């Protein structure tokens, strides 16, 4: 392919060097001699250029993409064909892909940074969608991060062009399917919401550090996008605020009706989240989602779902912060959030003004963040002016307002109230950045939290929470001793809390023992085991599966009684009771023993030690179809008392003919 280097296309673009290679095209750095600037030139691969229909689509789609003009989208300058080459001329970006960035920085990313990136991605999508262009292949490899921290999305429409090439290819060759929407995986009609899903996956990856679905081949991954439910982000990274988790999962909703209808709608929620981090993300008003404990249903986001702590400290903090805001709004609308839009507005316009102010504060905060974390390490530290952060700890708001000199030219971003052992109610109890740190001009914002006094220990609301997280909240944040009891429940998902003792709101003493009653799923369904000895393995396995049991192991066993492939023994005897989901071990004949010598010594050695005091003696009188005792494999005691916990869902139906192979 390097034949192109040094070549001049259209007497205008001089190909300088190769900078990338995609499935469809090779990307070169080039000089545009007419405008005297560097550009990226993407040349279609010759095997694809030979397909007339494909070339037509390539041009049509590229022309459409060239109409997009947005600061978060890589610009397409020109679409051309010369000397038998089809190529696109694009903005040359000096930066790295989000994938590379995540790899370099280490994931998960700080969620604030993730929001910064996803917001820009969504703006790009919003613009493209408004012009009828669906990206179809949103993934971190298609998101470029520039040196200034801004984001540009590239390769709009490419996926659609690529799918027009109907060359046979192996599943391995189709590239990443880790971000593919369920409707795309199914081949159904797609609309702009497919990009929302993929953006949701990107957000998921940024904040949790892992992909929602992984598998040993692309087909498995695609299937999971169709039929699996991801682990909620908060379980992978407890730092993630619940509302952000809800936003992520709503973007990734497999059901189109549950998903954000547009990039704009998701941007709205992200905006709201920055303003009110304890916000409640509304699910679609169609119906409730089952098994979605992270999404709280409410029609009135104004009313905090729970007056006391829910979920964890985040929400708690933000609850009080929210309340604090509302009170202030009532009391003195112009005092703190005074800004241009608000002047002359009075009470009625205060709310939007506050919103705007909050956004501005957030954006400024983001700016500091992006600068500190991202931009400044990239730039060579020059000689910009630096400012030392003053110590605000212990001051009250009133004191700061009375003596603005204390701020030393810094602005204050008032965060939530939080419990403090050290500082009294109303005093600033922590600040970020800390006193003594140096910041650059333009970053002179200090985020503070105000003490709400000492923590009074109250039992939080934990029902329907994942119990390990509830346990963590109780132990680590409240210093409780936790006792877990298990009960069957048809309503509460396995591993989620059914009830607590004491109940929500009760006063707690540090070191107190609290009890979590945790669901172990629906009550066990008993089944009576039938004989499978003498049957072919495949038939036995089918029957066992139909009965709701699981074949955990198939052991090979030489047998003179049974032909090869026939079941000779089963670990749970006919007539015994088992429970759905229980495992069973089968022994299968490998045919007669190779040596004709008598089969006196038992061939297999026990793989397990003789069991610990089984309540039932090993079965000594097998039914008529059983092999004679000498043939019987070691009698591992069948699980007689508590069934083993069901650790895995029963195997889902596999396609009959190993279709999922690589």
């Amino acid at each position, binding site marked *: 392919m390097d034949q192109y280097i040094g070549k001049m296309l259209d007497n205008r673009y001089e190909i300088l060097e190769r900078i990338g290679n995609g499935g469809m095209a090779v990307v070169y750095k080039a000089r545009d001699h007419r405008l005297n600037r560097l550009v990226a030139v993407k040349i279609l691969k010759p095997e694809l250029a030979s397909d007339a229909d494909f070339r037509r689509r390539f041009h049509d789609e590229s022309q459409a993409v060239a109409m997009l003009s947005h600061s978060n989208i890589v610009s397409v300058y020109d679409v051309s064909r010369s000397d038998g080459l089809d190529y696109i001329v694009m903005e040359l970006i000096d930066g790295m892909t989000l994938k590379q960035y995540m790899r370099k920085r280490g994931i998960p990313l700080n969620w604030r940074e993730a929001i910064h990136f996803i917001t820009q991605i969504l703006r790009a999508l919003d613009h493209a969608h408004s012009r009828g262009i669906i990206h179809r292949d949103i993934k971190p490899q298609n998101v470029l991060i520039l040196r200034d921290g801004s984001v540009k999305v590239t390769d709009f429409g490419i996926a659609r062009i690529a799918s027009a090439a109907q060359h*046979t290819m192996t599943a391995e060759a189709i590239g990443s399917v880790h971000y593919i929407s369920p409707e795309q995986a199914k081949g159904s009609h797609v609309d702009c919401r497919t990009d929302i899903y993929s953006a949701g996956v990107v957000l998921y990856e940024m904040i949790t550090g892992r992909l929602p679905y992984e598998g040993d081949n692309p087909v498995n991954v695609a299937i999971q996008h169709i039929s699996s439910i991801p682990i909620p982000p908060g379980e992978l990274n407890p730092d993630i605020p619940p509302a952000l988790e809800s936003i992520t999962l709503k973007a990734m909703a497999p059901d189109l009706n549950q998903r954000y209808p547009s990039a704009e709608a998701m941007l709205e929620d992200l905006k709201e989240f920055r303003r009110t981090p304890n916000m409640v993300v509304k699910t679609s008003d169609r119906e409730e989602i089952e098994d979605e404990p992270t999404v709280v249903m409410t029609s009135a986001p104004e009313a905090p779902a729970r007056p006391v702590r829910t979920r964890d400290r985040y929400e708690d903090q933000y609850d009080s912060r929210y309340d604090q805001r509302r009170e202030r709004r009532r009391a003195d609308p112009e005092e703190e959030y005074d800004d241009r839009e608000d002047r002359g507005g009075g009470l009625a316009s205060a709310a939007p003004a506050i919103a705007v102010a909050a956004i501005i504060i957030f954006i400024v905060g983001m700016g500091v963040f992006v600068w500190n974390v991202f931009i400044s390490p990239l730039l060579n530290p020059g000689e910009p002016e630096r400012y030392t952060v003053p110590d605000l700890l212990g001051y009250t708001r009133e004191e700061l307002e009375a003596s603005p000199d204390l701020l030393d030219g810094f602005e204050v971003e008032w965060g939530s109230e939080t419990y403090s052992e050290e500082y009294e109610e109303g005093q600033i109890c922590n600040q970020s950045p800390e006193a003594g740190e140096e910041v650059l001009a333009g970053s002179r914002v200090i985020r503070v939290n105000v003490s709400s006094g000492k923590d009074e220990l109250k039992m939080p609301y934990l029902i329907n929470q994942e119990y390990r997280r509830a346990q963590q909240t109780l132990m680590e944040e409240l210093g409780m001793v936790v006792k877990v009891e298990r009960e069957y429940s048809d309503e509460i998902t396995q591993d989620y809390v059914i009830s607590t003792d004491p109940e929500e709101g009760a006063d707690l003493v540090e070191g107190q023992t609290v009890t979590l009653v945790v669901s172990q799923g629906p009550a066990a369904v008993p089944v009576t085991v039938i004989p499978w000895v003498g049957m072919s393995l495949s038939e036995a396995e089918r029957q066992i599966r139909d009965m709701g049991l699981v074949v955990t192991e198939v052991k090979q066993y030489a047998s003179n009684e049974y032909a090869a492939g026939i079941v000779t023994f089963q670990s749970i005897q006919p007539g015994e009771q088992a429970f759905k989901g229980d495992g069973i071990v089968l022994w299968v004949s490998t045919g007669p023993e190779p040596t004709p010598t008598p089969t006196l010594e038992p061939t297999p050695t026990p793989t397990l030690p003789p069991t610990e005091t089984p309540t039932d003696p090993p079965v000594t009188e097998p039914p008529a179809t059983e092999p004679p005792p000498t043939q019987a494999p070691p009698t591992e005691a069948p699980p007689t008392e508590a069934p083993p916990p069901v650790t895995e869902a029963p195997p889902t139906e596999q396609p009959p003919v190993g279709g999922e192979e690589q």
Partner: protein
Amino acid sequence: MKLYGMTDVGRVRRDNQDSYAFRQWTEDTAVLVVCDGMGGAQSGSVASAVAVEAFSAEVEKLCAGGMPNEPEGRERVLIQAVTAANRRVYDLAQNNPEYEGMGTTLVGALALPGEAYIANVGDSRCYLLRDGAARQLTIDHSYVQVLVNRGEITQEEARHHPRRNVITRAVGVDSEVGCDIRRLETRPGDRLLLCSDGLTNVLDDGELAARSAAEADPERYAAALLETTLERGAPDNVTVVLAEI
């Protein structure tokens, strides 16, 4: 038994990456094979050409010394032939940078007196045409087939899935490959149709059957299938191999 084979580059592609072959030893003993190659530049055509040759040569070699008596032995002939084809393509791809990543589908049939054995890898298919109906004897190793098996989409939706070109198994991309083998009893008048997806993406099963019923002459039947495909724009290479018992 009469055998016919034909292939066409189609109306869109520049290269024909399909290959086919058939060999007949006796009046009622023959091997037929169709391969649909994949890979950049010309490598797809290389893969399919090498595979049809290796497959049919191996079958002939194994059968020439005397046909195995047992069905299992005959099935093994096909398995060994697929293995041989896989080895040849794989070795070529490993040892020549220009062939890197190439591979091919394969559908092959061993027709014997009163019976036939079918082997397949990938999404090239074998149909039995009998009593005015077309029965697909092979199950594709493809992404859309997985979706169909799981009940996510229907067979009809699979025909229009944008990813219907993605196969889950191919000859020559790995050191080993699994194939499915099927045996069926044949009757005089049966037609065995082997084809690449360039045919089945354009003509559905009903059309394959209707044409067969309408065309008593097997060669003209095969030609009619090809012609219809071309009339409809033939987006892909199209190959038909037909045996009339």
